[in-house]
């Protein structure tokens, strides 16, 4: 009989470095999915990714309406870059996207972060980026456990069944 030894993932360390709606959600869905599978999960926000854990901005993330070739009009036609640059368009399109996500049952960012920590996942902010953007711990979501250096983050990534994912 053929026996296949499975070596399931034990830990994922996800780095979110961009603050677009889709980039932050990609990180959140992967992190929450890992927690739900019983995988130890560390989620590290850095650079513009900090938008996703900053209280003021986290529930109002935008998607880029210029420089985004995949962006389509509601009917499926290409979205003209010139249109995307007009004042208010990015806000309106982003609000529409957040609404569609809500209709699919996707939680807003603050609730998503709570879901991840409720399951035992841990959320960190990058020391260097926090200093660069002159943020303080109190401006970040209460779900953020700590502000750590990249070295400390790597220490959390030990184990031979650990994967680091950069989004």
């Amino acid at each position, binding site marked *: 009989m053929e026996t296949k030894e499975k070596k399931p993932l034990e830990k994922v360390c996800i780095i979110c470095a961009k603050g677009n709606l889709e980039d932050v959600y990609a990180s959140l869905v992967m992190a*929450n999915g890992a927690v739900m599978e019983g995988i130890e999960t560390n989620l590290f926000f850095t650079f513009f990714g900090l938008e996703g854990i900053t209280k003021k901005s986290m529930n109002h993330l935008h998607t880029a309406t210029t420089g985004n070739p995949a962006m389509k009009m509601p009917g499926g036609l290409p979205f003209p870059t010139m249109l995307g640059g007009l004042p208010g368009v990015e806000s309106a399109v982003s609000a529409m996207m957040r609404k569609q996500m809500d209709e699919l049952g996707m939680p807003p960012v603050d609730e998503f972060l709570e879901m991840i920590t409720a399951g035992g996942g841990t959320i960190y902010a990058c020391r260097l980026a926090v200093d660069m953007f002159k943020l303080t711990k109190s401006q970040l979501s209460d779900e953020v456990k700590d502000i750590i250096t990249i070295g400390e983050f790597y220490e959390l990534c030990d184990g031979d069944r650990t994967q680091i994912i950069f989004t």
Partner: protein
Amino acid sequence: MAVKTIAGVEVKVTEDGYLEDMTQWNKEIAKEIAKELNIELTDKHFEVLNYLRDRTIAKEALTIRSVGKSGIVDIKQLYELFPKGPLKFSSKIAGIPKPTSCI
């Protein structure tokens, strides 16, 4: 598909061990599947299981978020009841199909 005897009843199960037919489920079967997952079922567990079964009959897609808003448990308690598999293990024990949701 395979046939497995759980708690003295012959049931059809999928490759992953989920019941094929949720009407074959009973409390004893639930207890035995839970045991395999190292979970001792309490009344609170059964409240969640019954909720999951009701929602499945109503053809609603299940997410941990919807269970968290059910008023029975919050998400943290759901993880405490079904460690490392809040939706997968609870669905398996509830005799309903493997969850297809990403959230």
